[in-house]
C-alpha cells in the first residue's frame, strides 16, 4: 500500500523536487526501465547494405532469431555509420511479412500459384536443364569448329548477389555449356 502511494505521481509531486509534475515525478516505471534494444541483442553481425554500390557498412542485431535492428556501422570508412532511406529500410526488407518464404509454382497454363516442395522444385529444375541441353545442344559450327554449348538456357541477374555466388553461377553454367548468362552490368 505504501509502495502504491509512493508510486502515485501526485504523492511524488508533493514530496519530491518536481512539484509541477513535469519530469521526475511523473516518469513511469516503463520509462525508467527503457534501454535500446541494440544493447540487449543476442548477436550483432557486421554486414553491408544490399541496395547500392556505395557499400555502406551495416550492423545487424538479432534477438531470439529475429532481426531487431539494422543500422549503419560507424567503423566503416565508406559510410561512417550513415545510411540512406533504402539502407535504413533494410530491416523491413528482411523481415517484411510480404517476403516470399515458400516455393511458389505455376504449372503451364495454370491460373494461380501452387505449393511445391523445395527439393521437388530443385529436382524438376535439374531435369529441365538437362532436357533443354539435350534437346538443343550445339556441338560444332558449320565449319566443324567446336561450340560446346546450348542456346536454350538463359540467365539474368547477379548484381545483387555475392561474388562467391556469381562465381559458382558462372562456373556451373559454363560447364553446362550455357553461355547466355547476363546481369545488370549490361543495362
Amino acid at each position, binding site marked *: 500500500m505504501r509502495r502504491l502511494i509512493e508510486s502515485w505521481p501526485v504523492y511524488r509531486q508533493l514530496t519530491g523536487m518536481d512539484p509541477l509534475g513535469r519530469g521526475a515525478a511523473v516518469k513511469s516505471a516503463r520509462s525508467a526501465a527503457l534501454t535500446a534494444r541494440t544493447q540487449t541483442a543476442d548477436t550483432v553481425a557486421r554486414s553491408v547494405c544490399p*541496395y547500392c554500390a556505395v557499400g555502406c557498412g551495416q550492423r545487424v542485431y538479432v534477438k531470439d532469431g529475429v532481426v531487431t535492428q539494422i543500422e549503419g556501422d560507424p567503423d566503416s*570508412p565508406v559510410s561512417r555509420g550513415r545510411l540512406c532511406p533504402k539502407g535504413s529500410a533494410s530491416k523491413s526488407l528482411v523481415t517484411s511479412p510480404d*517476403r516470399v518464404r515458400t516455393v511458389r509454382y505455376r504449372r503451364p497454363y495454370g491460373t494461380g500459384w501452387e505449393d511445391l516442395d523445395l527439393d521437388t522444385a530443385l529436382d524438376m529444375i535439374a531435369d529441365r536443364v538437362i532436357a533443354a541441353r539435350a534437346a538443343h545442344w550445339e556441338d560444332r559450327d558449320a565449319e566443324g569448329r567446336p561450340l560446346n554449348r546450348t542456346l536454350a538456357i538463359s540467365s539474368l541477374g547477379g548484381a545483387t548477389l*555475392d561474388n562467391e555466388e556469381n562465381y559458382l*553461377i558462372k562456373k556451373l553454367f559454363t560447364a553446362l555449356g550455357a553461355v547466355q548468362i547476363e546481369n545488370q552490368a549490361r543495362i
Partner: protein
Amino acid sequence: MIQGSNMAEAHPVGFQWVVDAKQRGAKVIHVDPRFTRTSALADRYVPIRAGSDIAFLGGIVNHILSRGLDFREYVLAYTNAATIITKDFRDTEDLDGLFSGWDPVAGVYDPASWQYEGHQEDSPSVAEVAAHKEVAGGLRHESHGAPVGRHTQRDETLQDPRCVYQILKRHYSRYTPEMVQEVCGVPPDVFAEVCRAWTENSGRERTTCLVYSVGWTQHSVGVQYIRTGAIIQLLLGNMGRPGGGILALRGHASIQGSTDIPTLFNLLPGYLPMPHHAQHPTLDKWVEGTIHQAQKGFWGSARAYCVSLLKAYWGEKATPDNDFCFGYLPRLTGDHGTYQQTLDMIDGKICGYFLLGQNPAVGSAHGRAQRLGMANLDWLVVRDLYEIESATFWKNGPEIETGEIVTEECRTEVFLLPAAAHVEKEGSFTQTQRMLQWREKALDPPGDCRSELWFFYHLGRLIRQKLAGSTQQRDRPILDLAWEYPTHGPHDEPSAEAVLMEINGYTLPDRQPLSGFSELKDDGSTVCGCWIYSGVFKDGVNQAARRKPGTDQDWVASEWAWAWPMNRRILYNRASADPDGKPWSERKKYVWWDPERNEWTGFDVPDFEKTKPPSYRPPDGATGPAALAGDDPFVMQGDGKGWLYVPSGLIDGPLPTHYEPVESPIRNPLYKQQFNPTRRYYDRPDNPLNPVGSTVFPYVFTTSRLTEHHTAGGMSRTLAYLSELQPAMFIEVSPELAALRGLRPLDWAHVVTTRAVVEARVLVTDRLRPLRVENHAVHQVWLPYHWGYAGLVTGDAANDLLGIALDPNVLIQESKVGTCDVQPGRRPTGRALLAYLADYRRRAGLSEGNQRG
C-alpha cells in the same frame, strides 16, 4: 564535376564526401537535363539537353586545347598526346561524321587507319571488329585497355600534325561555345563558367574529380561520353591523383563484383574473354586474344591467369596435355546479350530462363518485349525475395489487359524460389570503388529461402548426380567439373569462404593461398578463380572481412576490407608523382618514389612495381611488366600511357564525336551522320523507333531514379516505409509544357511512344525547363522507372516506352533519352490501347515494314 549522375539521390551516403568537400571550399557543378537533389546542393547547376554531353565536353576539350590550358608536363609524360597516328587517318571533321575505314556493309569500321604509326598491321580485320562488336568486346577494356604494341613514334614538341595532340585539337575545334549552345542548349556564359572552374581547379596544386554514372552509360554513344570525360581529366592531369580521377558510380551492391566475376555472356572472371568460335579455336589463340604479344604491362602474364582459371574450373582434369580443358569452354558466335535473348525468347528459341535477382519485366528496356518473351518460354525460374513482376506477368501484366497474354494460354512453367536475404548468408560484395566487403551471416534464412550459393551448388550436384555415368561428350565438362565445396548447417550450405579461397587462388598440390596474381603460373601449378581478386585471401586470411575502424586509420583506410587489384585504392596512382617520382605538390601527394629506400611509397599501395625506379627504361624486346618504363603510370595499357586517343579497341571511333540519340527531335547540327553509325539496333517489327524530328513525338523524355526507390522496385515498392515516400508513378513537366498540353498538377497524363503508352500523375515543376536548341524550344520530360504492377504501390513502367538500341561497345541500351508525346488524362485500356498506339504509329509514318521512319 557531376555529370550524368544524380549522386545525391542515387548514392546518398557517398554524397556525404561531396558535402564535406563543399564545406571545405570545393565548388560543385552539376550538369543534368533536370534539376535534382544533387543540383540543389551544387554551386552551379547546368541544364543540358539529354543525349548531348559529348558536344558539351568536346567544347571543354576545345577550350583547353585552344588556350593551351592543359597540364603540359603531365600530358607529355603520361598520355599518348605525342604519339603519331597513321597518315591514313581521316577524322569525322573531314568525312562529315564518319571516321576513315567505314564499312557500310559490315556496319563497322576497319580501324587500320586509326592505329599508331607503325602499328597498322596490329589492326584487327573488319571481320574481327564485327565479331568484337557482337560480343561487346569493349567491356573487357574496363580493366586492361586494348591491345597495342609498346613502341610508338612520338613528337615531344606536340607539333606534328599527325600527333594525337594536334588531331585532338583539330577534331574539337568546331565544338565552340556557340555550337555547345546550339546542341546542348547551354548558354555561353554558363558554359564559360564551367570551363573556367574545371581548368582553374586542375594542375599541380589542385585536382578536380569527375563523377558520372548511368546518366552517361545508357546511351547509344555511352562509352564515348566517358571517353570524353577521360580526355579532359587526362589533359588536366587529374588521373591517378587524390581528389581527381573519374568516379564511375556503379549501381547495385555488387554490380562491380558481378562484372569482375562476371555473370556476363562475353566474359570469364577477371575480364578474360569467353572464347569465340572463330577467333579462339585454341588455348594459345585465346590467350593471345586477351593481349598483344609485345604489349607492355600486366596483361603480359595473361596465360597464367587463363590457365589458373581453367584449373579452378576443372581441377585435376585440367592438364597441360589437354590444354587445361580449354576445349570444355563453350564458344560464342555472336551477340548473346540480354536483349538478343529477349528477342530470341519471343521467337521461341529459348526453353528456360533463370532470373537471379533481376526483374526485367520492369527494369529492362522495352518491357513489353520482356514480358512477351517470358510468356513464350517452357520454364522460368525466378529467385527473388519478393513476388516481383517478372514472376507474375502471366496473371497481372499489362498484356493481360490488352489480351496479348492470356493466362490460360500461356505455357510458361514458373518456379518462384525464395532467396535468402543479405543478412541470411555470408559472402562478399564488391562496391563501386572495387572494394570487396565481407558480410557476416546474422541468422538462418526462413522457410524455403536459400542463398544462390546453396541453390547453384546443389543444382550442380544434382545435375552431376543425374548425369553420372553419361557417355555423352557434352556431359564431360559438367562431370569433370571441380565441384567439391565443404558444406555446413541444417541445409548443407556450401562454405562461401571456401569459394573465396578458390577465387583468390592457391598453389598445387599443397593448397597454399596465393598472396597476389604475380604468383600465378601458366604451368598448372596454381589455381585461381579470378586473377584480379588474387590476394583477397592472402596469408589464408579473409582480407575482405577486415574491419579496422576508419577512425583508427589514415584517410585512405586501406585496412578496411580489400580492394582489387592488390588492395589498391586509387588506380594508376603512379601518376600522382611527377616523372621523377616526386609528388606533383605537397598538398596533393599520394604515392611517390623514396630514393633512400629505393622504392615506391605513400598512402596507398603503389600501382607500380615497388622497386622500379622512375629512371628505369626497358631494354629492347622486353614485354609485359618489364616493358613498362619508370614513368609509364598506366600500367594496364599497352603503351603505359593514358589514352587521349584510342587507336584500337573501340567500335565507334578513336575519338568521341557528337551523334544524336537514336530518337531525337533534331537533326545532328554537327554532321550529316545523325546517329552513332555503329549503334546496335534490332530492326524488327516489334522494335520500332520514333522517326527523327517527328512532330508526332515532339518531346524528349529521360528516365531515372529517385532516392526513395530502388531500380525495378522489388526492394522498395514492397516496403511500406519506402513506398509511402513516393507512392505513385509520376511525370515531371515544365510549366511551359504543362500550359502547352493542358496538364494540371496531380491530374493524370499519359506518355506515348511507338512502343507503348504509360500513364502517370503530373508534377509541374520549374526544375524542368525547355531549352533553346537550334533556335527552338525543346521540351524535356522526366519519368522515374521504378513502378510496375506488383508491390504496395503500383503504376505503369517507364521502360515500356523504350525500344532496344544499344551502345556498340558494351551493348547497353539507350534508356536515358527518347522522344514522345505527352497528353492529359489517363491512357486507354484493353484493346483500345493497341488501337491508340497503332494510330500514333500511322500518324508518325511508321508502317509495319518501316520501323525506323
